[in-house]
């Protein structure tokens, strides 16, 4: 149903496809965006960045795309008739996640080379896996992982369930799970900073609202929400 225009003058349906790791922050920000723009009916489509990109290439009715990495954004941009204009709105760095209590006594990245310890990493094919590779290279460590997980959440889940002794995960994820995991930061993390880009899509049926939403995500008000979740500002 078409919502009535609010004081901002914006109206209509606005669909935002966003990386699943943004579910919590975007849901919160979406509520306040709709409060500011009562005419807009905002809908989210959360999923794996790659799947979302695939959908957009297949002309899913989406106005805004927020990806968890720049590569997927580029895929969408390449497939689009007119080029996208993505902006990075947050960044994220890796931390070591260990089960609460850290019974295996993990201290730094060198423990990832320990055969005796159960280690989870993201697979090289997904963004967090690529980042892990970079930081481990920087530290000069040849990891001995027991499993290469399909995404950060899966790796984190293994830590939470105490199935592994350590995993490399994003800071935001570790923070969100602070009840059940401990988090160790390490110096080499700056070698792999994960950037989250957002862009209004040129095929959007509601370009004004799309633009407004992107601006809102870039705004200081949003910044606060991202900070609370453990994201870092774009450098």
């Amino acid at each position: 149903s078409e919502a009535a225009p609010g004081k901002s003058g914006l109206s209509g349906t606005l669909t935002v496809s966003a990386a699943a790791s943004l579910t919590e922050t975007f849901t919160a920000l979406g509520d306040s965006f709709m409060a500011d723009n009562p005419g807009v009916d905002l809908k989210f489509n959360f999923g794996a960045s790659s799947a979302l990109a695939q959908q957009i290439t297949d002309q899913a009715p989406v106005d805004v795309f927020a990806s968890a990495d720049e590569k997927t954004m580029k895929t969408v941009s390449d497939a689009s008739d007119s080029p996208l204009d993505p902006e990075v709105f947050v960044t994220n760095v890796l931390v070591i996640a260990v089960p609460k209590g850290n019974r295996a006594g993990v201290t730094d990245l060198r423990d990832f080379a320990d055969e005796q310890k159960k280690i989870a990493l993201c697979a090289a094919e997904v963004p967090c896996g690529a980042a892990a590779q970079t930081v481990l290279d920087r530290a000069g460590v040849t990891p001995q992982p027991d499993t290469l997980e399909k995404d950060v959440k899966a790796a984190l889940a293994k830590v939470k369930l105490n199935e592994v002794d350590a995993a490399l995960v994003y800071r935001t994820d570790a923070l969100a799970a602070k009840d059940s995991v401990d988090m160790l930061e390490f110096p080499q993390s700056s070698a792999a900073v994960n950037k989250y880009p957002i862009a209004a899509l040129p095929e959007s049926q509601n370009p004004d609202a799309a633009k407004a939403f992107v601006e809102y995500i870039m705004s200081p008000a949003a910044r606060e929400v991202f900070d609370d979740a453990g994201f870092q500002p774009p450098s």
Partner: protein
Amino acid sequence: MRSSWRLPWPLAIPAAIGLLFLVLPAIGLVVGTPWTRLIEILGTPTVADAMRLSLICASAATLISIVLGVPLAWLLAKARFRGRGLIRALVTVPLVMPPVVGGVALLLVFGRNGFIGRLLDDAFGVSLPFTTLGVIMAETFVAMPFLVVTVEGALRGLDNRFDAAAATLGASRWYTFRRVTLPLIWPGVLAGSVLAWARALGEFGATITFAGNFPGTTQTMPLAVYLAMENDPEAAIVLALLLLLVSVAILAVLGDRWTRRVNANA
């Protein structure tokens, strides 16, 4: 027919192990459930939506599977033609296809750029992906093979002299199918429908890829569970349990009714 019912242990022991193995994990989930947060989690408005959508779509997919799948099974079981083995194997393709790939494959055909999707769009302005219809389609794609294979098995077990008897009474193949074959393979159709329905209810990969994850229109329970898993695993478990509970309850009630009916018929 026999009442003194002794359970032979070479059957009882594996049966018990099998049952335990299938049921224990669910019990594990129940044990791990954060009962204190139950009301909060289940109270989310999107949960009811997702549950409703799940039931509707799975049931619709099962219905379509029956309508298309029973005839297909019949064709595979009764028709003699070259390449039948290949066709039977092709029916299992959606089973083997990793669901996400299935979703991509569906997009390639029924998406707006797919060769059928374009036709549909041009002819009727209908677009399937990212709609509830798309969810039903993805679930049908994944669930139908279960029905087809099960019903074909039932058809093969059938004494086909009943067909012969019906034919001499002037019944066409179609009449025979409706009045003799179908009632006799009813237990098989039932089993197949249960499998298809359950599989459709749990479907995730093909659905999220082909239909997206839009609350109210395409977000089924498994998608909601997946999303919750990303953020709030405890909530995910509660949602998954809700899904299981509803499905088990429905199957238990229907199952009892159906079985009773079937026994009365046999």
